[in-house]
Every structure is written in structure tokens, then in C-alpha cells.
């Protein structure tokens, strides 16, 4: 495998992409890369990589603070809530419906109820995805939607068969991406 001598370590580049907000990523990544190339030429790739890694790690708290201030965290939390809240509300609703069965029943849900959960998560995630203004944010929101769906599944009382859990975990990011692709800019 040929290693580009002027390409910073992949793991730390990814970390930087994950930590930096949209408004700051290009600026920070550009500056770090420029310095990285300079150090590689003068001191070698090893020293350049070490410096790059240290800079990324040191920048993370500040970059996250900037993201919070710019309101990106609100987007992420909204995306997580968009899939977690419908799941939890529907779980509460199905519990109520099942508790009305005269001779009672357990926590297993009918397939139709589980399908309604998946559809609701998908729709809510699509609405959340439509709010993303860029591809990068859409990707972040879809991941946040998947995380929210995971939280929703974990906090639900009703049982979650594996096929249902997988469907929910896929429906959330898929809905978010479809929402972005279909309604962005409208």
C-alpha cells in the first residue's frame, strides 16, 4: 500500500471531522494540514503525525464548544429526539392498549403495532432530516437519528424482537436521509 507522505493520519482526520462544526472544519483542517506538511518535510512523517494527533486532541474541547454555540448541538438533539420520542410515546400507547385487554397480556406486541412504530420513526426522522441544510449535516443527523432510535428501543418497556430492532435502527437514518434528499431547501 502506498502511503501519501502528506496525508495526515486517517483516524485523527476522522476525529477532526466529527468534532469540528461545519463553519470551522475547512479552516481548522486547512491550517493543520499546512503545518503538518511543513513538519513532515523538515522532521519526517512520524514527527508530523504526532504533532497532528496532539493538535487534534487538544482542539476537540474548543471545537465542540464552538459547535454548541453555533446551535449544531440543537440539531443533533432534535434528530435524536425525532426518533426516540415517537418510539417512547408509541410504547406508552401500546402499553395502555394492552393493559385494557380484559384478561391481560404480556409485553410482546402484535406485528401491526411494531410496523406502526417503524413507520412513525421513519416519518419523524424524515422531518428531522429535511431540516439539514447540507450533506454533511444530513449525515450527522442521520447518525443522531439512529442513536435516538437505539435510545428509544432501550428505554421502551415492550419487547423488541431482533427483526424489529434492526428495522427501527435502519428506518431512522434511512428516513432522515430520504427527508433530506426529498425536501432540502424547501
Amino acid at each position, binding site marked *: 500500500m502506498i502511503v501519501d507522505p502528506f496525508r495526515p493520519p486517517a483516524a485523527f482526520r476522522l476525529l477532526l471531522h466529527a468534532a469540528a462544526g461545519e463553519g470551522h472544519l475547512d479552516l481548522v483542517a486547512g491550517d493543520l494540514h499546512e503545518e503538518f506538511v511543513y513538519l513532515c518535510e523538515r522532521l519526517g512523517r512520524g514527527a508530523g503525525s504526532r504533532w497532528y494527533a496532539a493538535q487534534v486532541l487538544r482542539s476537540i474541547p474548543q471545537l465542540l464548544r464552538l459547535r454548541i454555540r453555533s446551535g449544531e448541538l440543537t440539531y443533533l438533539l432534535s434528530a435524536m429526539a425525532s426518533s426516540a420520542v415517537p418510539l417512547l410515546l408509541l410504547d406508552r400507547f*401500546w*402499553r*395502555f*392498549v*394492552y*393493559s*385494557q*385487554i*380484559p*384478561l*391481560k*397480556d*404480556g*409485553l410482546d406486541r*402484535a406485528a401491526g403495532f411494531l410496523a406502526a412504530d417503524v413507520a412513525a420513526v421513519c416519518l419523524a426522522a424524515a422531518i428531522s432530516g429535511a431540516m439539514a441544510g447540507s450533506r454533511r449535516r444530513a449525515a450527522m443527523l442521520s447518525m443522531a437519528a439512529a442513536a435516538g432510535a437505539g435510545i428509544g428501543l432501550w428505554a421502551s*418497556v415492550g419487547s423488541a424482537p431482533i427483526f424489529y430492532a434492526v428495522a427501527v435502527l435502519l428506518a431512522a437514518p434511512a428516513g432522515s436521509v430520504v427527508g433530506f434528499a426529498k425536501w432540502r431547501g424547501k
Partner: protein
Amino acid sequence: MKWLKRIAIVVAALLIIPVLTLLILGLRPGAGRSQASVEIQASPEQLWAWIDDGSRLKQWVSWTVDVKPWSPQAGPGATRSMTMRDENNGGMLMVIDSACTEYAPPKTLAVHMSVPDEFEGQMTYRLTDLGNGRTRLDVNSSYRFSNAFVRLLEPLVTPSARRKMEGDVARLKTLVESRAAELR
């Protein structure tokens, strides 16, 4: 403003469409009624004990915690109470009062069930001798809910109750036939 209108339309649709659907479904002929049938390799007399005897009843009616004996004694007018565990309500216990309305061993048992402010209904167990040691059990139930919101949700509750009942009679078949096989 345009977005607010759209959101208002979506919210209204999300409320109105399900409510209308439930109202229409609630008018169907079999509303509130469930039925389950099973053919069991046992005589009507053997099967009767599983319906009449509270300690056996709780082995196949899932989530039953306790069934008190008939009082004063089995027959029309006698009463007994069933205690059910509601896993969907934090494991809360609910006591159902039953009053026998028809008692014809080993053919028919009908009970009127009620929980104040929750529901009341009728449950009938009918046993038909099919010959060769086989019996068909038909379980019919019909319920009426006290709360208006629960009455609206009846199209969701009744199919769930029917599924539960089908699971219970399937368990009864397994229990009775395995017990009969042990005795043979």
C-alpha cells in the same frame, strides 16, 4: 406562516384520521367479541376440570396469579374472583369478579366478568364431544368498556385480546394432551 399551516394540517390529519378510522372500525359487527376454538385429544370430562378448577385454570390462562374457588358452590349464581398481573402496567394486580351464568358440566360454562370502572363482559366455554376421545373447545367472549377513550380504542384492544385467547387455548391443548400422554 406557510409552514405553520402545513404543520397544523399534518397534526390535524394525524389526530383526525386515526380517530375517524377507530370510530368506523368500532361499528363493525364483531366489535368487542373474540372467539377461539381448539380440538383437544381428551374427553369432555377431562377437559372440563381445566376450565372449572381454578388451580388448573391459572396454568393455561396466562398472567393469572390466583383464582378463588366458586362460592358458595359451583353453579349458576356462584361467584369467584380471578387475580391477573398486568405487565403493561408495571406488574399491577387486577381482580376480576366472575359470576357463573350457566353451569352444565361437561358441556357449557358461562361467566359474567366485571371490573368496576374498567369493563364488563361475558365469557362462554363450550365443549363438544367429537368422539374417539376428542373434544372441541369453543371460547367466546364479549366485552364492553366503561371508559369512552378505551371504547374508542376497542378495534385495537379486541384483536389483541383475541390473539391472547388463541395463545391461551393453544397452551391448554399442549398441557392437556401432554398430561394425557403421561398417564397413558
